[in-house]
Structures are given as structure tokens and as C-alpha cells.
């Protein structure tokens, strides 16, 4: 995947010579589809078919009523679900990290989320007559295709990409940062931590705890590194892509951590799962059940997040644990905080000591379940048993 992305950089000088938004956009679409076709011929076929289908549905839906829009969207989502699950099942055995793409078809997890968002917006009547070329440019855009960030159609198509000298230099710097994070730091952390995760027997608790820290840091560096590379390459072509990571591992609670981890994914989960599920339940229940509705929404979003990373009980359990942590923060810890004296709460919120302790607890609440992302449930529980047994 990385050679594909870096090879794309070579096209930048030719792109800079072009004038006009349409020409530049079409050139990028063609270059992206060709590069993806060289990697796997099925990818451009799939992307072109998806863009044409969505554009056709968009035109028809715009002239039809709400029922037509919803029916079209439901069929589109069903097709996507089949493609996503089929792809995951065919690629079982691959890792969850961007550097470990073991799926049958590259980038389908991200493509599916972009397309699902478009179909849902279509059902809501907010995707107005999309043009096939715009959809194609958005879906195929190579810098973000394999591992995000997940660009929203409106944000992408509203841009008038004009590469500037400053933008190009900042983009190159960002690519370098990303390479250091993903290829150097994440890679060597993986080399060190993989044997510990694979064979925890006979190791001390300290070593196993360091293994958890290293594994979590590796996840962050790999995901954030690939996001940096994508954002940097996009800048070379004059595109401004949304940030994806903002120091998530030094946040005061799990909700804040998730607001700054894989930001475009959590935005997607919030917009298309958490809010609709919570609000749907709230509409059918009274104020007394608000907490239950919010908890159910959070659980649904994080279970989906787990299954999106991999189809397996380990990912289900990982998602459920993250959701429980977030429910604890929003529905238990904060109400308890409101019972305490305001001066004490204010001191806790603004003191370095409060920040250090909160961050440390949050980091551990996030990091310990990550063993589930690299191993099945039984092996993960075995690892944690050895860690806590001393």
C-alpha cells in the first residue's frame, strides 16, 4: 500500500502544471483509478460502478419522494453490507492496522463508510443530484483511499484545489512525519512487542505491562502515521483533508480520548449510529429513560466500531469495553462529580495533579483492552490473567 501512495507523489509536478479545477480533478480521478487498477483490477471496476449507481440513484431520488429515497438507500446499504462482510470474511487473518492490510480487497472498509454516509444522506434528502465525476473523484482519491481519513463528500467537493508553495512544503514535511511514525517507530515497536504478545508465558508483570503500552503506542503511531501521509500527499495536490488524530493518548477521560482518536471515524459513528440510535430510543421513551437511550446509542456505535475493525468476538468485546468506559464517564462519573463540592471539582479540573491522574487512568482504560485487537478472546484473557497475577 505504501509504494502505491508514495508512487502517487511522482504525479504531483505534472498536476501543478494543469489549470482549471475540472481538469485537475479528472486527472486525479484517472490517476487514482489507474494506480488502484495496477494494484488490483477489481478496485476501479467497483469504484466506477459504485459512483454510477449512486449518481443514478441520486438523480432518481431527487425527482421521487421520501419513500423512493429511503428504498434506494436501503438497497444501497444492503449491497454495501454484503460487500463489506464478504471482504472481511475473505480476508480473515489480516491485522487491524493500516500497515497490515490483509483484506481481500484493499480499502473496502473505508470505501464502505464513505458510500454508506452518501446513501444515508440520500435517504435524508441532503445529497442533491451528485455528479458522477464528483463522486468518482471523491471515492477514488488515492491519498485517503486505503486508510482514511474518511472525507465527507460535501467537504471534498466544495474545495478548489490550488497547490501553493507553502502547502507543498508543509505537505512534504507531513509525509516525512508520517513515514517516521509508521515505518520507523510503529514498525520497531511491533518488532519488539509482537513476541511478547504472542508468548506471554514466563514473563514478568512489568514486561507484560510494557507490552500493553508498546502495543497501544504502536496502534497510535501506525494509524496516525498513515493519516499524516494521506494528509501530506493531499496537500501536495492542493486538497485540505480533515485531521484524524489530535494527541488522543493524553486526554482526561475516555470520551475525550475518542473525540481525538481517528476523528473522522468517530465523527461517522456519532453521526450515523450514536445520534440516530439514541434519539430514536428517546423519542419512544420518556425523560426517565434518557440515560438508557444514550447508553444504548454508545454501545451500538462502539460495537459497530469493533466489528468494522474485524469480525470476531474479540472485536465485539473490545467495542463493548470501550462503550462501557464512555458510558461510565458520561452517565456515572459526571453525575457523581456534580454531587461533590464545586471548589473540589474545579481544583481537580484545573490542577496538574488532577490532569495527570485522569490522563493516566484514561490511558490504562483504553490501553488494556487493546490486547483484544491483536489476539482472540481466550489468548487476550490469558495475557491479562498473567499480567495481573504477577
Amino acid at each position, binding site marked *: 500500500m505504501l509504494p502505491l501512495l508514495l508512487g502517487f507523489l511522482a504525479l504531483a509536478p505534472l498536476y501543478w502544471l494543469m489549470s482549471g479545477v475540472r481538469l485537475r480533478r479528472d486527472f486525479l480521478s484517472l490517476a487514482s483509478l489507474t494506480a488502484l487498477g495496477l494494484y488490483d483490477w477489481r478496485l476501479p471496476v467497483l469504484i466506477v460502478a459504485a459512483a454510477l449507481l449512486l449518481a443514478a440513484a441520486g438523480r432518481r431520488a431527487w425527482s421521487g419522494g421520501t419513500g423512493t429515497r429511503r428504498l434506494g438507500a436501503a438497497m444501497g446499504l444492503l449491497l454495501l453490507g454484503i460487500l463489506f462482510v464478504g471482504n472481511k470474511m475473505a480476508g480473515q487473518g489480516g491485522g487491524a492496522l493500516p500497515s497490515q492490510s490483509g483484506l481481500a480487497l484493499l480499502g473496502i472498509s473505508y470505501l464502505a463508510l464513505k458510500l454508506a454516509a452518501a446513501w444515508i444522506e440520500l435517504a*435524508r434528502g441532503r445529497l442533491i443530484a451528485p455528479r458522477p465525476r464528483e463522486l468518482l473523484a471523491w471515492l477514488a482519491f488515492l491519498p485517503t483511499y486505503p486508510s482514511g481519513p474518511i472525507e465527507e463528500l460535501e467537504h471534498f467537493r466544495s474545495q478548489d484545489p490550488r497547490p501553493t508553495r507553502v502547502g507543498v512544503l508543509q505537505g512534504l514535511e507531513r509525509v516525512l512525519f508520517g513515514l517516521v511514525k509508521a515505518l520507523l517507530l510503529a514498525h520497531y515497536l511491533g518488532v519488539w512487542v509482537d513476541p511478547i504478545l504472542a508468548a506471554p508465558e514466563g514473563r514478568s508483570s512489568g514486561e507484560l505491562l510494557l507490552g500493553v503500552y508498546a502495543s497501544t503506542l504502536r496502534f497510535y503511531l501506525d494509524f496516525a502515521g498513515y493519516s499524516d501521509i494521506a494528509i501530506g500527499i493531499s496537500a501536495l495536490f492542493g486538497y485540505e483533508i480533515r485531521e484524524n488524530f489530535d494527541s488522543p493518548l493524553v486526554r482526561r477521560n475516555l*470520551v*475525550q480520548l475518542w473525540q481525538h482518536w481517528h476523528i473522522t471515524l468517530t465523527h461517522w459513528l456519532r453521526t450515523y449510529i*450514536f*445520534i440516530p440510535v439514541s*434519539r430514536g430510543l428517546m423519542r419512544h421513551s420518556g425523560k426517565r429513560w434518557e440515560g438508557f437511550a444514550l447508553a444504548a446509542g454508545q454501545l451500538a456505535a462502539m460495537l459497530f466500531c469493533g466489528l468494522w475493525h474485524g469480525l470476531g468476538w474479540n472485536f465485539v468485546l473490545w467495542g463493548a469495553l470501550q462503550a462501557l468506559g464512555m458510558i461510565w464517564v*458520561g452517565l456515572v462519573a459526571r453525575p457523581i462529580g456534580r454531587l461533590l463540592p464545586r471548589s473540589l471539582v474545579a481544583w481537580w*479540573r484545573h490542577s496538574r495533579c488532577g490532569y495527570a491522574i485522569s490522563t493516566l487512568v484514561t490511558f490504562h482504560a483504553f490501553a488494556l483492552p487493546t490486547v483484544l485487537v491483536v489476539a482472540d478472546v481466550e489468548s487476550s484473557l490469558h495475557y491479562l490473567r498473567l499480567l495481573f497475577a504477577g
Partner: protein
Amino acid sequence: MDAETVERQILAFLRERVEEDQETIRRDTALVSSGLIDSMDTVRLATHLERTLRLKIPDEDISVENFDSIARILSYVEGRLGG
């Protein structure tokens, strides 16, 4: 419904939900992007406004753009009531 009533409703909600000193929350204080309120609070706030102001807020309108400050919420609610 005037802006003052809407603002009173928002402040009543924030008084219940936010640990921060109320005096420091101004019309332009960032609520969501600063972490003062999270996504669960935002959904609660939207539902609170729907119930108290008797207006419909579609799910897709619950966003940082519409809910990040009292000023933005006022402007959004004004638009909904006006529309």
C-alpha cells in the same frame, strides 16, 4: 419565542450538566469543541430544546456547527422557528 427565553433554557441545561463555573460561560464560549459538553450532552441538549421550545430538531442537525456555542444554538433555533 424570543432569544432571551431560548438562552434561559440553554443556560438552565448547562447549569445542570456542566461542572465549569457558570460565570465563565459566555455566548461565544466553545461548548463541544472545548470539551465542556460531549456528544451525550449535545443529544440531551437537543432533546431538552425540542421539549421546552416545542420545535423539531432533525438528527442530522445535531452537529458542532449548530451546537458549539450559545450564539450558534440561538442562531440555529431562530432559523428553525423562523422556517
